[in-house]
């Protein structure tokens, strides 16, 4: 299984992701500069966190027009895996690969913290190494992470069980006190209808090396790896 990490001008979590897939998991990984137009060798595309194009206009708005994004859409059409983390999630919504939008945090602050997150669904590769309803702690670092979608879109997301991760309290309650940024339905991460495209604001790659105090994020990569190796 080969990973590709897209690098836009302003991406800054690209090497953190590559560190996890290449150094920790020993998987073939290459960095993909945003001007590349052939990514057909990749099985999993990761759009990392950062501030692509300086977050000009809107977060992720300009990245969607990078040459490589046409290939990312093609990659999606082929039913291959795409993971957008933080700014990558914003890019995926701007590109229309995931519904909704990420707007400014409810309380205006840029939040850099570790927050409890509940795993809502474990029948997809992304979350297969977690247990259903499991509480994990993941780092977040964003100013625009407030997930917004209109009522119909939210209903469709819930009806189709597309919410994979929700912010919660330390005891697992899904309520306002456990919602750091004001996200609709406490949404921290969603997938598309096929389950192949995942966008999430928390950073699993920053919780993968035991040296950093938590490996709660590593299970996301391990689950994907395991599923792929079983089905391959």
């Amino acid at each position, binding site marked *: 299984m080969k990973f590709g990490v897209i690098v836009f001008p302003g991406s800054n979590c690209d090497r953190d992701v590559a560190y996890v897939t290449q150094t920790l998991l020993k998987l073939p990984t290459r960095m993909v500069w945003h001007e590349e137009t052939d990514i057909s060798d990749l099985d999993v595309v990761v759009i990392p966190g950062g501030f692509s194009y300086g977050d000009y*206009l*809107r977060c992720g*708005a300009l990245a969607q*027009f990078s040459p490589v994004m046409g290939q990312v859409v093609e990659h999606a059409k082929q039913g291959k895996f795409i993971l957008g983390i933080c700014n990558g999630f914003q890019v995926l*919504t*701007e590109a229309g690969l995931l*519904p*909704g*939008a990420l*707007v*400014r*945090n*409810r*309380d*205006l602050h840029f939040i850099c913290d570790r927050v409890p997150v509940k795993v809502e669904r474990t029948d997809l590769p992304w979350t297969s190494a977690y247990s259903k309803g499991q509480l994990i702690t993941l780092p977040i670092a964003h100013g625009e992470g*407030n997930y*917004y*979608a*209109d009522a119909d879109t939210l209903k469709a997301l819930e009806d189709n069980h597309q919410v994979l991760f929700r912010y919660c309290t330390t005891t697992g309650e899904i309520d306002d006190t456990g919602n750091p940024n*004001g996200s609709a339905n406490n949404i921290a991460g969603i997938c598309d209808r096929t389950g192949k495209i995942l966008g999430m604001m928390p950073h699993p790659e920053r919780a993968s090396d035991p040296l950093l105090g938590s490996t709660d994020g590593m299970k996301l990569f391990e689950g994907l790896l395991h599923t792929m190796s079983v089905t391959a």
Partner: protein
Amino acid sequence: MIHKYQARIYVTLRPSVLDPAGVAVESGLKQLGYEGVEHVRIGKYIELMLCAANEDKAREQLDRICDQLLANPVIENYRFDLVEVAALIGASS
């Protein structure tokens, strides 16, 4: 014949989208004593020049520009004013 226009584009958050920056500014204004101020909403203002065969074509092009990039229809609305540049020069001289 090609006409040149200046577009003044206003991008605003849809009413259903929370605008915490607007709320913060409103509370600042109230602290300054402007008690009557309410519903502060912060948007974007964009100017650009464009060439088109006529005003209808210019408007069509601007709609596409706004839908594709300048505004995100999920969270934002837009409107624009269009001024033909020749008229603009005439008015300012």
